[in-house]
């Protein structure tokens, strides 16, 4: 059985990976003015991978340790991260619209940049109480 601390480490690593992949996808799409600079299934596959990894880790940790890892400070951090993700989506979407970039490009960059912001915020907030 893995501990709540280990589950938190798994979460930090999984979210960091998700953030890196989403940010890379958004930047590559923006740099190449093409949403398919990287395989378009990659962000979704990453999200599914993170879910599966965390689900398996949570099963191994048991109910008590999982609840401890997802306690009230985590939920508070998640709301903060979701807020940053929301404003990133709004800002990015608006900026792309002003730059006359629409359609698939706008959608791909907006969604992946918002996801990257969510993941990076979550990792940063998780690391805040580490020492």
């Amino acid at each position: 059985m893995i501990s709540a601390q280990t589950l938190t480490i798994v979460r930090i690593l999984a979210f960091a990976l998700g953030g890196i992949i989403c940010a890379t996808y958004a930047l590559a799409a923006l740099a190449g003015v093409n949403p398919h600079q990287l395989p378009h299934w990659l962000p979704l596959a990453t999200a599914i991978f993170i879910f599966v990894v965390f689900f398996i880790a949570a099963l191994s940790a048991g109910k008590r340790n999982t609840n401890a890892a997802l306690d009230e400070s985590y939920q508070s951090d998640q709301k903060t991260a979701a807020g940053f993700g929301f404003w990133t989506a709004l800002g990015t979407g608006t900026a792309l619209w002003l730059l006359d970039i629409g359609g698939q490009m706008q959608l791909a960059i907006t969604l992946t940049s918002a996801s990257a912001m969510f993941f990076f915020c979550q990792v940063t907030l998780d690391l805040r109480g580490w020492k």
Partner: protein
Amino acid sequence: MSLINHLAAHRRAAGLTQAQLAEAIGVSRKTINTVENRVFIPSTLLALKLARHLDVSLHDLFELAPETATPEKDIT
């Protein structure tokens, strides 16, 4: 108005590490750490659990910082 907390002192007095206290009340060590460092303000429920486990009153753990004197508004 800020919250002063004495959680770290009471935890050490009880001979507990952050991890042991976290395990005992069913939260993560990070939560205990962020409460002690005044990064996160716990819910009433968590504050009561902490007080009960450390066998102290809530007011021994948390207290409001004294208010700085502010000029009263004239509402007449």
